[in-house]
């Protein structure tokens, strides 16, 4: 899938004008107006490869699963579970991307995703990145996917399984995206040592957040490579909404204000015989989190609908854990199989249940998935997945999901 492309071998004389053109383009890109991006003529220079990179990723899926609202029991995930309505073809998370190298060290990138359920587009990413301010240090500013753990910094079309998994859903409502700055430093050492720090003025589920992470990585012999790290995320949610059933089985909306401190550990292991992933390769991936929340939870008044909440709030403290492990194996060119196990633990749930009449009891939500996918070409992928979803207490579900991803145009290569 990683096709094309980088920049412009600009003839020396042509450089200034091409740069000016790119900068004009950046200004427009930063306004985030898709329509104006579409009518810009790409910068052409003699012998140049494609810059800017323009691509569209079609992501069509179909799900055979239980209808109605599904909650992750024992947790207060932000918002509703994303994804498609049951038994309907949907284009959720199809993406339009535009990226350009403005100077040798300045890159701009934007992506707009289509949120099918709400029939609208959303600016998922829009950032400028200055590479190598001092050797090894890169600064990114704008809206970007956080480096929290491993999978969070990937676009959904690069995920190996269909739909949101449990861990990101409870941590950030699906995808932790920051409006802010990110600083990364790669140490000048033999072994890969990377430190990243992020500061968000607005984040997926809180107005303020910062994080600090470190990752190590290396090869082991010719056939193995690994990467592992820990990230600490500190957020200050303000009226973060959640959805849960109350004791009358009526949907209730909650609002949490306080502090949220999360540790995430992630490990990735890849194997390819002799380092040649073309024929066969194996990818093992696992992430684990521990989150402590401390603050006030309000259950909004839903008595008009026959609910039990009256809008009062209670002190709310939780300490919860969870994670997943998955394996994906390419057993022959173009064909892969994979399995994933996810498990959460509602852990400590400390609140006054008479003030907050909600159904939030101890539970260990889990989900098992298996998938098989086939890539007719480098740009396309067809995937079939089966989930045994026991994330909602007393309401297990067997789900079949089908997904087709096709990329058009040039887009940046996928990370390790």
């Amino acid at each position, binding site marked *: 899938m990683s096709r094309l*492309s*980088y920049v412009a071998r600009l003839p020396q004389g042509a450089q200034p004008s091409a740069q000016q053109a790119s900068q004009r383009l950046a200004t427009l890109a930063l306004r985030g107006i898709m329509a104006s991006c579409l009518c810009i003529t790409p910068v052409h220079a003699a012998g140049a490869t494609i810059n800017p990179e323009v691509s569209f990723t079609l992501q069509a899926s179909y799900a055979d699963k239980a209808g109605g609202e599904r909650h992750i029991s024992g947790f207060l995930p932000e918002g509703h579970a994303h994804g498609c309505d049951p038994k309907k073809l949907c284009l959720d998370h199809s993406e339009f991307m535009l990226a350009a190298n403005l100077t040798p060290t300045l890159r701009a990138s934007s992506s707009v995703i289509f949120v099918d359920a709400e029939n609208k587009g959303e600016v998922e990413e829009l950032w400028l990145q200055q590479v190598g301010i001092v050797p090894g240090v890169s600064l990114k500013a704008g809206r970007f996917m956080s480096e929290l753990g491993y999978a969070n910094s990937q676009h959904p079309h690069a995920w190996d399984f269909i739909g949101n998994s449990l861990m990101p859903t409870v941590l950030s409502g699906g995808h932790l995206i920051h409006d802010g700055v990110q600083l990364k430093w790669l140490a*000048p050492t033999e072994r890969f040592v990377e430190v990243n720090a992020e500061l968000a003025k607005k984040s997926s589920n809180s107005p303020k957040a910062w994080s600090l992470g470190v990752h190590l990585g290396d090869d082991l012999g010719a056939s193995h490579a690994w990467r592992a790290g820990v990230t600490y995320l500190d957020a200050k949610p303000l009226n973060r909404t959640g959805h849960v059933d109350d004791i009358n089985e009526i949907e209730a909306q909650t609002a949490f204000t306080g502090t949220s401190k999360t540790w995430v550990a992630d490990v990735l292991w890849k194997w390819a015989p002799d380092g040649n992933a073309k024929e066969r390769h194996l990818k093992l991936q696992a992430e684990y989190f521990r989150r402590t929340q401390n603050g006030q939870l309000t259950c909004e008044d839903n008595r008009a609908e026959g609910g039990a909440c009256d809008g009062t709030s209670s002190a709310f403290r939780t300490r919860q854990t969870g994670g997943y492990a998955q394996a994906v194996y390419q057993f022959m060119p173009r064909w892969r199989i994979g399995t994933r196990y996810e498990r959460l633990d509602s852990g400590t749930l400390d609140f006054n249940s008479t003030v907050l009449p909600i159904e939030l009891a101890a539970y260990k939500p889990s989900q098992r998935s298996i998938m098989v996918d086939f890539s007719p*070409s*480098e740009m396309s992928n067809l995937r079939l997945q089966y989930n045994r979803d026991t994330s909602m207490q007393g309401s297990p579900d067997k789900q079949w999901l089908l997904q087709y991803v096709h990329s058009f145009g040039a887009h940046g290569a996928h990370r390790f």
Partner: protein
Amino acid sequence: MRLFSLSALNWLLLLGLGTTPAHAQLTVLTCEPEWASLVAELGGAQVSVSSATHARQDPHHIEARPSLLAQARRADLVVCSGAELEAGWLPLLQRESGNPAIQVGTPGYFTAAEFVTLLDPAHPGQPLAGHVHAAGNPHLHLNPHNLVPIARALSQRLQQLDPPQAAFYRERGHDFLARWQTAITKWEAQAAPLRGKSVVVQHGSLTYLLRWLGLQVVADLEPIPGVEPSLNHLASLAQRLPPGSAKAILRTPYQAARPAEWLASRIQIPVRVLPYSVGGNPEARDLFGLFDSSLKLLLAP
């Protein structure tokens, strides 16, 4: 106390705040082993060179592994084929390494494709089926004539990046080019009997070698460039090609053995695994060995 001060110095060095030693070798990272071999020829002991890939890896399909990022972080110069061969991973190495010295448009970034004419560029508007490199075929190191302008340009680049050693690089460059021209003359004499012979290939990996030697490609195991050989396509080839209609089926060490062997058994044609790059077989120890071995395999009865 002494231990402490040593470790403090180490930390300073680690943070890039310490001074570098008075005389340092140039650290060069190449995308493919053929360029590592060329850098070693041109830079000798003044350079420390490593290759991101080896000949048994498909250079299209490499991941920006942490170990490669760590190498790119410390490189003074990156030498690659270019022409989008490394488009799936090199931009990531450049960006994620945070190393300003090796970015596109800086002297620390060298692509061989800039200095030669590429074969088979895509026509404007051609459907981007499979894996088409718009600029042309990037497996350009397999015509030894291409190495001449590339070696000249690369020697100049080394001189530019390490001026105190410029005379040394210049001299090694002249020496290499003289030996290389002699070798080309020898190879062309050896390969004369191959002119006009037919071969079956997999992908355009060997195109430069075959065109240089005047070999005819009668079939490709890939239905579309970059798309893996399918059973359907192989079966149609088996039907179309009469037994003995080509001298050999050629593949590289990084391509799967099965498709070529399946077809070989149907049409009674031998399979030859050419080294493709330096390290592709024991004889291909350097650029000279690469062509010696390739010719020997092609000339084998």
